C-alpha cells in the first residue's frame, strides 16, 4: 500500500468491477433492444413518440416532475393499485431519453397515465391547479404553463373548461394553455406500458413468476 502507483492501480481495478457490471454490461445486454411485434395484436411495440409528445418530455424533464412521480411498475401491489397491467421492463423505455424512472412517489406512478386518464382537459385543469380536480392535492400548480386573459371577440378554442365555481371566479377571462402545456399533456397521454410482452405478459395466468429479462435479444421474437 505504500507504493503510490500500486494504490492508484488498485483503486481503478476495484472501481471498475461495478463499472463493468452496471455501465458496460447493460449496454451489451440491453443496448440492442428493438421494437417487437406483439403477438396478440400484431402491433409494433413500443412506437416512437410524436414530435409534440417528445417536446412534452422536455417540459417534464425541465420541471423535474420525476421529483414526485415514478415511471416504473413493480410486480405486486403497484399492479393491484391500478398503476399498470403488468410490471415494466427494459423494452418499455427504449425510446425514452432521458429515462426518467424517478425515485419518489409523492404522487402516483405515471408509467400508464396515458391508459388511465385520457381526458386532455382534465390534465390541463389539473396542471393549472391540481386542487380543482384532486381534493387537497399537494402537487404544485403549474400555472406558468398557462396564460390568463380577457375573452376577446373570438374565444380561444384551447381555453380550459373549468369546473363551474372556478369558471364563475374567472368570469370574462379565459385560461389558455401555452404550447408547453399542450406538449406536456401529449407526453402524458403517450405514457403507457401495457402491451403484453414475452418477458412481461399481462398477468392472466396468476402466480407465474414475473419473467426476467435474461437475454431478451435472443429469447424474444425480435424483428429483424
Amino acid at each position, binding site marked *: 500500500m505504500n507504493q503510490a502507483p500500486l494504490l492508484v492501480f488498485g*483503486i481503478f481495478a476495484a472501481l471498475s468491477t*461495478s463499472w463493468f457490471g452496471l455501465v458496460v454490461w447493460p*449496454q451489451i445486454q440491453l443496448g440492442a433492444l428493438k421494437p417487437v411485434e406483439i403477438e396478440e395484436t400484431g402491433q409494433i411495440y413500443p412506437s416512437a413518440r410524436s414530435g409534440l409528445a417528445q417536446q412534452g418530455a422536455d417540459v417534464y424533464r425541465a420541471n423535474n416532475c420525476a421529483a414526485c412521480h415514478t415511471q416504473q411498475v413493480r410486480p405486486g401491489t403497484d399492479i393491484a393499485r391500478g398503476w399498470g397491467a403488468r410490471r415494466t421492463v427494459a423494452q418499455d*423505455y427504449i425510446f425514452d431519453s432521458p429515462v426518467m424512472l424517478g425515485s419518489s412517489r409523492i404522487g402516483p406512478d405515471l408509467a400508464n397515465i396515458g391508459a388511465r386518464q385520457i381526458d386532455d382537459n382534465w390534465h390541463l385543469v389539473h396542471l393549472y391547479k391540481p386542487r380543482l380536480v384532486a381534493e387537497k392535492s399537494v402537487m404544485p400548480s403549474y400555472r406558468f404553463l398557462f396564460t390568463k386573459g380577457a375573452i376577446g371577440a373570438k374565444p380561444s378554442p384551447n381555453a380550459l373548461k373549468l369546473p363551474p365555481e372556478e369558471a364563475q371566479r374567472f368570469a370574462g377571462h379565459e385560461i389558455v394553455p401555452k404550447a408547453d402545456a399542450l406538449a406536456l399533456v401529449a407526453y402524458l397521454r403517450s405514457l403507457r406500458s401495457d402491451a403484453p410482452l414475452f418477458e412481461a405478459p399481462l398477468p392472466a395466468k396468476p402466480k407465474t413468476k414475473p419473467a426476467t429479462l435474461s437475454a431478451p435479444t435472443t429469447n424474444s421474437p425480435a424483428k429483424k
Partner: protein
Amino acid sequence: MSLSTQTDSRANAPATSAEIDASCRAPVLFLFTSAALWLVAAAAIGLIASLKMHQPLLLVRGAELTYGRVLAAASNAFLFGFAAQAILGVTLWMLSRLGGTPLVAPLVALLGAVVWNLAVTAGVGGILAGDSSGYEGFEFPGYAVPALLIAYTFIALCALATYFQRRERESYVSQWYLLAALFALPWAYLTVHSLLLVDPVRGVAQAAINLWAVAVLREIWLGGSALAVIFYLVPKLLNRPLHNRGYALLGFWMLLILGGWTGLYEGAPLPLWMVKLGGFASLLMIFPLFVVAWNLHATANGQVVLGAECRVLRFAGFGLFAYLTATLVMAMNPLVSAALQFTHYTAAVKHVAFYGAFSMAMFAAIYHIVPRLAGTDWPCENPMKWHFTLASAGVLLVALPLAVGGWKQGMGLLDPSVDFNQISRTALMPIRVSTLGEILWLAGSLLLVGNLVRLLARRFCPCAALAAWVESNGGAR
C-alpha cells in the same frame, strides 16, 4: 512494509507543519469558505423545497421556483458546491500533512477552485432555468460540465502530485480513502456526461448508469471522504495509534468493490441478475461497516478529550454514528424495499448519510484544519457548540419524521384499497416537522459561515504584532 531506516537524506526529511500549512493556506481556506457559502445556499433552497412540499400554493407563479427545479438545485448545490469543495480542501491539506510535504502548485489549485465555483454557479442557475439534464444527482446542464471537470483536474493534479512526492513513506488509511474519492467523482461524472449527455445510450441502460454513478458518489466519494476524516481525527485527537492497519485495508477495499453496486432496488426494470447482485452487495456492506466500527472502537478504547478538540471530536463522533446507522439501514434495504423504496423513508436514510454522516465529518475537519491554516484559534467556542447543537438537531428533526412518515406511507401503499391521496395526506404532518429541521440546519450553516468569517477577519487584519505572534505559533501540528 516498514520504514527504511537510514536511507532518507536530509532533503527528504518531512517538511514542518508550519511549512505545509503555509503552502495550503490560500487554496484550502478558499475551498472551505466557498464550501460553507454553498452550504448556506443549498440549505436555503432546500428550505424552500421543504416548505413547498406542504404548501403547494407557495411561489407558483414562476417556473424557476417550481418544486422539482428547486429540489434538484438544492441537492446539486449541496453535492458540488459544498461537498466537493469541502472534500477537496480536506484532500489537499491531509495529503500534504500525512505525506510530510508542502502542497504542490497551490496557485493552480486556487485557480481550479475559482473556476469550479463559476461552473457550479452556472450549473445551479441552469437547473433553475429549466436546463436540467434529467439524471438524478447529476442535473447540471451539459454546458456546465466541461468547466467543472477542467477545474477539477487542476485541483486533483495538485493533490496527486503532492501524494506522489510525499516524504513519509508509510501511507495511512485516510490517504487511501481520499485518493479513492479523488478518482471516484470524475470517473462517475465523466461516465454520466459522456454516456448520458453527450452521446446517450439507449433505454434503460441509462438508468443503470445513473444508479451506479449515484451509488459511487454516495458510498465512495461522500462515505469514503467522511471515513478519511474520521480515521484521521479519532487517533489524532485521542493521541492513540490506529488499532489495526490490516483491518483498515480490508474495510477500504471492500467499500471500493461493493460501493457502486448498492444503488439497485427490487423491482427496477433492469435485468434480474443485476438487481439480485445489487441487493447482495448491499447486504455485504455490513462487513466493511463492521470492520470500520470495530477498528475505531478499539482505537478509541474509551478515551475522552476535553476543550476545543472535544467539540471537533463531537462532530466527528456524530458523523461516525450517523455513517454506521445509515450504512446499516441501507444494507437492510433489500428486505424492506418492496414497501419503502419510493417513500419518504428512502429520503430519510439519504438525509442521514448526506447530512448526518458526511456533513458532520466535514464540519469536524473544517473546525480542525482552519485554525491551523489561519494560525490562530477559534475566537470563541460557543458558536461552534451552537453549530453542533443546531446541526445535529436539524438532522434528527428531518430524518426521524421522514422515516416515520415514510413508513406510514409504505404501509398505506401496500394496501391497494387505501386511497392514494389519503396516503399523501398522512405524510403531511411529518413533512411539516421536517421543515423545522431544515430551518435549524440553515441556522447552523449560517453559524459556520459566521465562524469562518470572524476567524479569517481576525487573522488577516493588517496587524503586524498579531501576525508575528501567529507565525511563532504556527508550528503546532
